[in-house]
Structures are given as C-alpha cells and as structure tokens.
C-alpha cells in the first residue's frame, strides 16, 4: 500500500502530471485512504521539491511542474473526499492570487503561485487583468484569508490601492490580509496604500504568508 504513496511522491517530484492523475484514480479505485494518499504522497513529494529548491538544487521548471502535478492529482482526491462527505484535508491557508486590472504580466505571479503551492498553501489563481470585484468574489467563494495582487507597471500599481479601497467600501477590509508585489512596487508603496505586506521575491512571499497566518 505504501508503495503507491511512494509512487505518487516520485510522480510529483518528477513533475509528471499524467502519472499523478493516474495514481489518484488508482487510489480511489482501490479504495485506499484518501487523506493518507494526500499526505504521504502528494504533500510529501512537494515538500521534497520545496526543500531542494531552498538548497538551490531544484530550478523553476522543477518546482512549477511539481506544483502542477500535485495540484491536479490531489484535486481529484479532494473532490472524492468532498463527494464522500469526508473531512477536508488541512491546507496551510487559502490564497487568492491575480494580476491587477490593466496589467497582463504574469510570469512573476505564476512563480509566486507555484512556490506558495509547493509550500503547502492552497492557491487560487484568477489570472491577469483582474478587477477588485474578481479578487473578492473568488476569495469569498473559496473562503480565502489572503488576497495577493501582482503589478508590474507604474501605471497599474494604483490598482493595488484600489483593491484595498474596494474592500474598505464593502466593509470587509478586516476579513482579508492583502499582500502585494511585482517589479515597481516597494515597501514604501505598500505602506502608502496600507497593504498588509509586501516582499520583493516569491521566496519571501512564502515567509510573509506564513507570518500573516500565524
């Protein structure tokens, strides 16, 4: 039984999405413990990749493909868990991530998403060019506690402030921690718009989210 968990772990480490899905289906078909498969397989795999990333042995394609394999495979088991009415697997926190309105840069956002996923957070990526409404609708739907907004242009940075204004207007500012990032942003800017956090790199974003949810 533990052999398949090892296989899942290896599939995640190899970034093999197809295999990660196939093994999830096998777990269900064989009636194995879903939570155990998640924790000893998918989570274990991504933790190992996260560790090699930290030591500089793994590179972005390794981490991002592993995050994708984990997300898709684990998604199948989670859906099955929900269908069976079982207890949800505990994640480290839910985060809605997107690039603000008027901005289509997404490489940095994708990296932040993958690294947060690899660190055990549940990340909902709503894509590029997104209005405050879209961030909030998703956060509301999935019960997220962190909203993360990316901006790469001096001309779209102010949309990060508008997102915070929008939360205030709706009277739900306290419901979420808002973090921002992207090339032209800075701690000074985050202070100005009263964001809950800013960091320069995706690695630091993991530390920041852990702190905010502690």
């Amino acid at each position, binding site marked *: 039984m533990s052999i398949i968990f090892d296989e899942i772990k290896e599939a995640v480490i190899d970034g093999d999405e197809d295999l990660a899905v196939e093994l999830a289906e096998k777990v269900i078909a064989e009636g194995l413990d879903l939570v155990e498969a998640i924790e000893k397989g998918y989570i274990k795999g991504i933790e190992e990749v996260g560790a090699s990333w930290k030591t*500089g042995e793994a*590179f*972005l*394609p390794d981490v991002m493909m592993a995050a994708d394999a984990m997300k898709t495979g684990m998604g199948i088991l989670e859906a099955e868990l929900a269908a069976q009415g079982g207890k949800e697997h505990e994640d480290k926190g839910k985060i809605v991530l997107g690039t603000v309105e008027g901005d*289509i840069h997404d*490489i*940095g956002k994708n*990296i932040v998403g993958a690294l947060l996923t690899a660190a055990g957070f549940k990340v909902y990526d709503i894509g590029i060019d997104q209005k405050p409404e879209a961030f909030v609708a998703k956060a509301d739907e999935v019960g997220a506690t962190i909203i993360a907004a990316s901006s790469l242009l*001096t*001309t779209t940075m102010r949309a990060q402030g508008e997102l915070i204004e929008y939360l205030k207007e709706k009277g739900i500012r306290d419901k979420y921690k808002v973090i921002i990032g992207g*090339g*032209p942003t800075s701690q000074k800017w985050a202070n100005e718009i009263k964001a809950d956090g800013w960091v320069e*790199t*995706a690695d630091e974003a993991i530390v920041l989210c852990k702190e905010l949810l502690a």
Partner: protein
Amino acid sequence: MLPKYDILTDEQIQTIHDNTMRILQEVGVEFSYEPAIEIFRKHGQKVDGHRVYFDREFVEEMVEGAPSEFTLHARNPEHNLICGGNNTIFMPGYGAPFIHDVDGNRRNATIQDYDNFVKLAGASKNLHMTGGNVVEPQDVPDETRHMSMMYSHITNSDKCFMGSASGYEKAKDSIEITALLHGGLDVIKENPALVCLVNSVTPLKFDDRMLGGLMAYAEAGQATIIASLVMSGSTGPATIAGALSVQNAEVLAGITLGQCINPGTPVIYGSTSAITDMASGALAIGNPECALFISASAQLARFYGVPSRGGGGLTDSKIVDAQSGYESMMTLFAASATGINFVLHSAGILQYYMAMSFEKFMQDDEIAGMVSRYIKGIDMTEDKLAFDVISKVGPGGHYLTQKHTRKNFKVEFYKPSLSDRQSYDGWANNKLTANQRGNQKWQDVVENYVSPVLDPDVKQKIDEYIAKRSKELL
C-alpha cells in the same frame, strides 16, 4: 567601416524562416484589436475568433514592401539619421521605473532625472539620439506623462527622439507635437521624424494598446519598431532556435500589419529576447545567449531587407562594477559588430531594464565610443599606410616628432573620457573607481550643458497644444 559579421549560414537563416512560416501558418497569432482582425480578413487571411493564420506568400510579399532604410529627421538637420544599411544609432535606455544612485540606493525616477538623461544624451558625442521614455517619471501624472517626456526631448536637445505608442490617443499626441516642431503633418509624413516602440505580447499575441499605437504611426508615416521580447524558458522555448522562431513570427506578423495599413511605411525589426534565470524567474540580459539573439536578429533583419533594433549596454548588475562593464560591452559589441541599426538601451540600464543610473550612463557612453571606433575599422588609404614616414624614420628612431603622427593620432585613436590611463601615482591620488569618476563626470556635463535654442513661435505652439490637451486629460 567593418563588414557586418554574420553568425548564421544562409541555410540556417532559411531554416529559421521556414520554421517561422510554419508557426504563422499552423499556430497563428492572436490580435485582440478588432481593426487589425478586419484588415487581415480583408487581405484574405484565415481568421478564427481573434486568431489569424497567415499565408506564407502574403507575409513574404508584405515584408518585402517595407523600406530597407529611411531617414529620420531631427530639428537640427545635422542630426538627421539614416536608419538601415551599415549605420548604427545609439541612444539611452527605455522605460525603467527606478534610479540607482552611485551607492546603489534605489529610488523612483522623476522628471528632473528625465531632463538630465536627455541632456547627457544631447551632450554625448557617442549617442546619436536622445531616445524615448528614458526613465518613467513618476512625479508627473500618467495621463499627460507622454507629453511631459516629449517636451523634455524637444526643449533640451535638437537630436532625434522617440514618441509614445501606448494607445491611439497618446500616439496621436506625440505625432501632433512632432508635427508642430517640424512644420506640419504633411512635412513629417514626407520626412519621418518620430519612432515608436510597439511590443508583441509573447508568446504570439498583440494587444489593443500597442496596435492602436502602430495604427496611428503607420497612418502618419512615422517609423515603428515592432519588437518581441521572448524570455527564453518562460515566455518562449528554452532553446535559442525555438525562441528565435517565436520572436521572428511575432515581428513579421507586426510588420505585415504595418504594411497593410500604409504600404511602404517605415518599420524596424526589433528584438529584446533574452533568457530566464531559472533560479528566480527573472529576465537575464547580460549574457552570451542574449548576444546570440541580438546577432541573429541583425542578420534576420538583413535577410528581410528591413532595419534592425536590438542590443544595448545590457546588464543584470545593480551598480557600476566589473559585471556591469563586461556584460554591457558584450551586448553592445555584439549589436554593433553584427549590424544592429537602432540600438535602444545603449546607455544607462541596470538590473534587466528595471533601473537607470547616471554613472552607468557614463560607463556606457564610453563603451559606445570604443565600439564605434572599433567598427569604423582600419583606414587603408595611401597616407594611412604611412610608407613615406616609415622610410623617413627608417630603422631605429621614433615617430613622436613626425608631422604624420601629429596629424593622424587624433583621428586614429579613440580618446577615452572615463577610462583611467594615468600612472599609478596619478591614480593613487584619489583612487577613484569608474563608478566614482562617472558620478563626477555626469554632474559636470549636466551643469555645463546649454540647450539649443528653440524657435519661440514653435515653442509657444507646442506649449499651447500641451496645455489644451492637459486640460482635456486631467
């Protein structure tokens, strides 16, 4: 002038071309801008939603119609520039939001910084244009920022400059103001005076804003750089040949659109492709792979018979140091030796286009001077072969007191302005690094700079236009 160096064989160029045509035919390019889709439909291209699938012959024919060179007109005709052929045009960096100071501290760029860079480019013997969007001046409102920037180029120098391409409206303002400077829209339609930068959205897309800019420039007969920045490994394949093909497909699609709008309108083949640093995801520009993209792009543009844009003094360093020097020299040298015509980002760039630095500007100005001297090559005329003076001095003796020497050294030797060639003691008096020397030097140049006089009538018209538009926009 040195012959331009080719890095690809004829077969290799043909291979890239074939791969590109296959991408354009089978994968297609997405255009979000409706008028563009309409144009392609009218020209009989297969359109599916926003995706356009191109006919090979159509693209080849359209690109063929683009001029191989054109003259860019300056307020002072002495600064007119031929874009194309064997010419190399240097100018400052473009678009950076930050300034890094001499100690490596970072701050937001301002309009004062903008003016200073334009003055430095105006004063430089090595830079031919004052560029465009030399920094992002964050202390002026973004609704009217494009006009503030134009105004700086127009009032601080009489060299050629660039205009905005962020949407049809801003492009129009740039064109109108330039027309006022040169005496009318019809004058600049005949004699192009403005260049703008239109970027594809890699991979294989073009967005509304940029195409609006392209429309306005093509209609007015002003020049457009159609540029692609493939981040090899993230926004494009991790192989140079693959990324080059994606870039080529995008640029050719853009050039084709420009030629459909206004046949014969001047366009420039642009590349800023480079690689992704796989440990952080950041763009990395100061490397041999980037130099290969630059070199191949120069050659591809020659193959298509259009002027090229690429390269610059490119670095990932955060301050003027050994890294900024060796990386910038590699990329500016590659651009010049392989025949890039229009070298945006020649001076000032630090940290993969995120910052400009005045000290770096002085470093790159020096590199530009050295590279220009190198590509000028060796003069082989009778007098330069120097037989007479060789025979006069004969074996032994020296040349320091020869007329031939006195007459020739100034033309043959590049005179450095930043490099230190002093004795040890001379240097040891202050022990200044290139960074520190650059810091003193740029301040001197700005302090002593005198802006060329602008005709008061023309200035008034431009002032009025900007005042009127600002009222509408703010």
